[in-house]
């Protein structure tokens, strides 16, 4: 269910809005949403297999291009390496991170969380457009 539609139904259940208002809000929501089939950016549904990184840049007047394709399976296997890091190494890394102003506790990072992160990568698309460089990260 759409997140905004769920919010409207929650407000209706809590009595914050009347059924008529809820109906009007849902109708407005449907009007604002473009039909999925009309979008040219819609990717085929299915499990993504690869993470793509594409960089087009111009350095000193010369065009440069980087295309990288990494299997998501490799990322999944890679995150399991986190479980192999010795505790003393994690403690040292934590100390260095806090010294650099990044108070991040690596011991709290669990392989299951990293795996969940990789699982949801297929919904991620990052696009950066700059006059001299264009970066695109996506999964397919």
């Amino acid at each position: 269910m759409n997140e905004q539609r769920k919010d409207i139904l929650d407000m209706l259940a809590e009595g914050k809005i009347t059924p008529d208002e809820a109906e009007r809000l849902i109708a407005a929501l449907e009007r604002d949403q473009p039909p999925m089939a009309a979008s040219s950016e819609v990717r085929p549904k299915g499990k993504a297999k690869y993470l793509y990184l594409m960089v087009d840049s111009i350095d000193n007047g010369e065009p440069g291009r980087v295309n990288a394709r990494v299997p998501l399976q490799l990322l999944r296997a890679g995150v399991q390496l986190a479980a192999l890091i010795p505790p003393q190494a994690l403690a040292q890394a934590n100390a260095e991170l806090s010294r650099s102003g990044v108070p991040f506790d690596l011991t709290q990072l669990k392989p299951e969380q990293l795996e969940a992160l990789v699982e949801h990568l297929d919904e991620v698309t990052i696009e950066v457009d700059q006059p001299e460089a264009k970066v695109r990260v996506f999964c397919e």
Partner: protein
Amino acid sequence: MPQLLTVRVQRPQGRLIRIWVPVLPVVLVLSPFLILAALVAAVACLVYRVRVMRAFGTGWRLFCALPGTRFDVHEGRTAVLVSIR
């Protein structure tokens, strides 16, 4: 498991170098060194209190997940391609 590693380098002078590395024969040829490296890795795991079998399992999974990896870099008239199949 990876079968073939392809490296292609295009130099600015126009020379193109292509290298195909069949992984399995190379692994077989290097197997004595790989066994030695595995022993050293096992000792390192014991020293740093990392579970040896888990470390080897993760390493093997990483190795087996390599097929499909591809890096293609173009910079002016220079280009490098590394592909694992």
